[in-house]
């Protein structure tokens, strides 16, 4: 039996078994999910690299699956994050209803993602893509709250993306009658693909939906928020990266072979790449702005995910070796830190009952481990040295500047800075500050939930110290995309002015400063501070209403919001709402054709008959 097929089979059959096992015991599905992912992971890591190759001829089509070095990068992410998330889910999902459905869909979507990165033909790519989409849809609506807004929107946008892809696939098929990606690339190289431009635009559209690029991002914040945290980690961490994977596939491995003279429109660094990069930049900026004003931690992180995906898209779209590397680096990092953050928020939600930052505060004493992992990942997220987020951002800036996109750097830099603001808010809102009375009972999450988070936090620290650990696999993966020998000096960045900056120094310096500050503050805080409740009015200058929460969690960025209020006034969702209302009215109008009067129907028949007769007799 083929190893790759076996891995997929384990996941899919595990899904079915998990679904059915709910009848036996509530606890069983989570265990089965964990076991299947573990088994798949063991199988993947113990097999030699060249066995991941699977061909199937069925229904008149040839399906090819193959894991190359580039896909391997994503497989690492998928399996690693899913494994940790499923371990976490065992504890997280304890005592919840309908676990069977949850783990069924979770395993399905993991299998779907593996299938996507392994697919070497467009039909199996699409099949796995759809499986991933609908299973993630079912998890998004799993909690059942707000089905209409969240669920339907997610599915509609996904379907729009998927059908755009299908359209593109069909265009390619009509030209060369094959779905095989290698053959398509060959055809592009030989310029036998007249529909290349349309097809690639449509494909990119489809991938942009999953990557939540700007005009198509409206589904993402709600969907990320709605899904249970154990899954949101996967959702935001790797599932959204499938869009990035697809973009890389189109931009870097397909379009690269297009003749620059013929396809100057779409060629890398050309029109489409630029547009995509700008969309990414705008997404990053706007999503960051929205993240700032969220009060729900999960929603904040959701917007933050959208913003981060914007950065990653920029890197892929610019398409220079450095930018691609930066982008892949950021992708892996994002999977790690956003995964950790969502898991941590899940822990908070499970223990404290909510992730609303205005309701809880001061959990640092109750949930110290969670605080620790949150801190680590937030430092990564904000792109502050000493952790690896800084390295990724730096690489991206450098790539952009060397490529001449200086203005884009400004946008990215702005949103990166703002990211620091919102990430601080999480830290402060939930963990720091005064302790609420009603969170006094909160306990630390169980070990099975802490462990995955801590593992990821440690990974983040390790990567921050030795970012080069990641450069090797990325560089290897990039050889598949045609970027041979991307040279990267471990821990050394060359800046714009030609000097080299040793990252190690920066990191060490900042690390030392951080520790010093920590020590200083801790020592200072020992004395003279007093714990006050959030409803203690003695700290307040005015006379508040009774039980009014006066902490900073409320209106955290009030001044900023006031300043930036014109930006918030226009909502993207409004446009879609208007559109859907308009369509609704149109549909309602259209169906009035069926008047209910049988005679009218008969009249239609005769009108149609006569019209057809006239048409046929006069034209054919």
């Amino acid at each position, binding site marked *: 039996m083929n190893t790759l097929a076996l891995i997929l089979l384990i996941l899919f059959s595990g899904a079915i078994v998990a679904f059915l096992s709910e009848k036996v015991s509530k606890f069983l599905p989570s265990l089965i999910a964990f076991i299947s992912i573990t088994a798949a992971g063991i199988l993947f890591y113990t097999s030699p690299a060249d066995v991941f190759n699977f061909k199937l001829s069925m229904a008149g089509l040839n399906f090819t699956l193959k894991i190359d070095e580039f896909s391997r990068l994503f497989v690492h992410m998928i399996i690693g994050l899913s494994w940790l998330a499923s371990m976490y889910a065992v504890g997280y999902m304890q005592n919840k209803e309908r676990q069977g459905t949850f783990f069924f869909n979770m395993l399905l979507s993991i299998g779907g993602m593996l299938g996507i990165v392994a697919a070497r033909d467009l039909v199996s790519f699409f099949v796995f893509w759809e499986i991933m989409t609908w299973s993630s849809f079912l998890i998004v609506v799993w909690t059942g709250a707000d089905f209409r807004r969240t669920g339907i929107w997610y599915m509609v946008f996904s379907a729009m993306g998927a059908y755009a892809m299908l359209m593109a696939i069909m265009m390619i098929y009509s030209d060369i009658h094959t779905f095989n990606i290698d053959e398509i690339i060959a055809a592009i190289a030989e310029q036998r693909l007249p529909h290349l431009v349309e097809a690639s635009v449509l494909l990119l559209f489809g991938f942009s939906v999953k990557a939540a690029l700007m005009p198509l991002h409206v589904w993402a914040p709600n969907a990320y928020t709605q899904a249970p945290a154990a899954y949101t980690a996967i959702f935001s961490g790797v599932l959204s990266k499938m869009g990035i994977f697809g973009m890389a596939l189109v931009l870097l491995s397909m379009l690269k072979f297009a003749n620059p003279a013929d396809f100057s429109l779409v060629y890398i660094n050309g029109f489409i790449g630029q547009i995509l990069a700008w969309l990414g930049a705008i997404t990053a900026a706007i999503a960051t702005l929205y993240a700032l004003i969220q009060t729900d931690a999960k929603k904040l992180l959701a917007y933050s995910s959208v913003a981060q995906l914007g950065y990653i898209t920029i890197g892929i779209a610019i398409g220079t070796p450095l930018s691609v590397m930066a982008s892949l680096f950021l992708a892996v990092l994002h999977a790690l830190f956003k995964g950790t953050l969502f898991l941590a928020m899940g822990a908070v939600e499970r223990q404290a009952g909510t992730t609303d930052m205005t309701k809880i505060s001061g959990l640092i004493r109750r949930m110290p481990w969670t605080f620790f992992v949150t801190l680590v990942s937030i430092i990564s997220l904000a792109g502050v040295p000493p952790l690896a987020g800084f390295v990724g951002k730096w690489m991206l800036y450098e790539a952009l500047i060397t490529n001449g996109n200086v203005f884009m750097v400004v946008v990215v830099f702005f949103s990166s800075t703002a990211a620091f603001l919102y990430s601080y808010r999480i830290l402060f809102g939930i963990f720091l500050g005064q302790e609420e009375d009603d969170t006094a009972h909160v306990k630390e999450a169980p070990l099975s939930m802490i462990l995955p988070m801590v593992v990821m936090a440690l990974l983040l620290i390790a990567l921050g110290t030795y970012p080069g650990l990641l450069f090797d696999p990325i560089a290897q993966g990039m050889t598949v995309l045609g970027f041979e020998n991307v040279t990267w000096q471990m821990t050394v960045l060359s800046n714009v002015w030609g000097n080299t900056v040793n990252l190690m120094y920066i990191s060490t310096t900042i690390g030392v400063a951080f520790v010093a500050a920590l020590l200083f503050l801790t020592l200072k805080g020992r004395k003279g501070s007093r714990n006050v409740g959030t409803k203690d009015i003695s700290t307040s200058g005015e006379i508040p209403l009774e039980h009014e929460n006066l902490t900073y969690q409320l209106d955290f960025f009030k001044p900023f919001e006031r300043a930036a209020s014109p930006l918030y006034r226009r909502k993207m969702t409004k446009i879609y709402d208007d559109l859907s209302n308009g369509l609704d009215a149109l549909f309602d109008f259209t169906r009035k054709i069926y008047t209910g009067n049988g005679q009218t129907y008969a*009249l239609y028949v*005769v*009108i149609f*008959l*006569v019209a057809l*007769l*006239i048409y046929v*007799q006069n034209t054919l």
Partner: protein
Amino acid sequence: MKRFLVIFLMLALGFYLIQALHFVPFGANRMGAPADKKTVAAFYLNETVPQTAVANVVTAIVVNYRGFDTLGEVTVLFLATTGLASILYKRRDEEETERVSKPSSTILQTGAKVLFPLVVILGVYVFVHGHLTPGGGFQGGAIIATGFLLMLIAYQKYHLSHSMLTWVESLAGILFVSIGLWGLITGGTFLENSWFPKGTLNSLISGGAIPIIYIAVGFKVAAELTGVLDILLSTKDDKSASNIQQ
């Protein structure tokens, strides 16, 4: 407005129908000479007498060459009866409404009593001689149904045995199908005629199984049409009677 649209549509449709009929000159011979057997019609005209010994070619076609259509057709009628019964079905409690209307005149009653046997005999004659003279199962059946109709109208209390109707209808239908199946069983085809002695042309016993089938069809059609009318007649609401006599 709508009326003018419809009139326009009718004119256009008429134009195209006439245009189509232009290719079908009236009264022209389109079959070719019967001996050539170029078309089915010519074949039937040429072969009916030698092959089936039936004088009435239409009967031969209806019962034998295209007997399958006839089977379908009696099925349509059968389904119409079944369907009518289900469409106009009333639950048990409301079923027993009397067929109320003014009693018919004595003339009608007497006339009906006299005419009824005659009509039935005429009908039987028509379908028994279906293979010799114009007429056949449908016609005869319809005539018999008319006779029953007469009785139903003349005598408000005329009780038609539903059970009888069902029996006749079903048995006739089964007879038809089993004659067809007999052909299959004896190694021929469905509705095969050749296993039955052909007889001589223009005698009552001729045409193989055709008269038998037509008799079965006659009974069946008679029972079905009577059934249809009976069902229609027995649905009444209270106001119905007054409505027709103004």
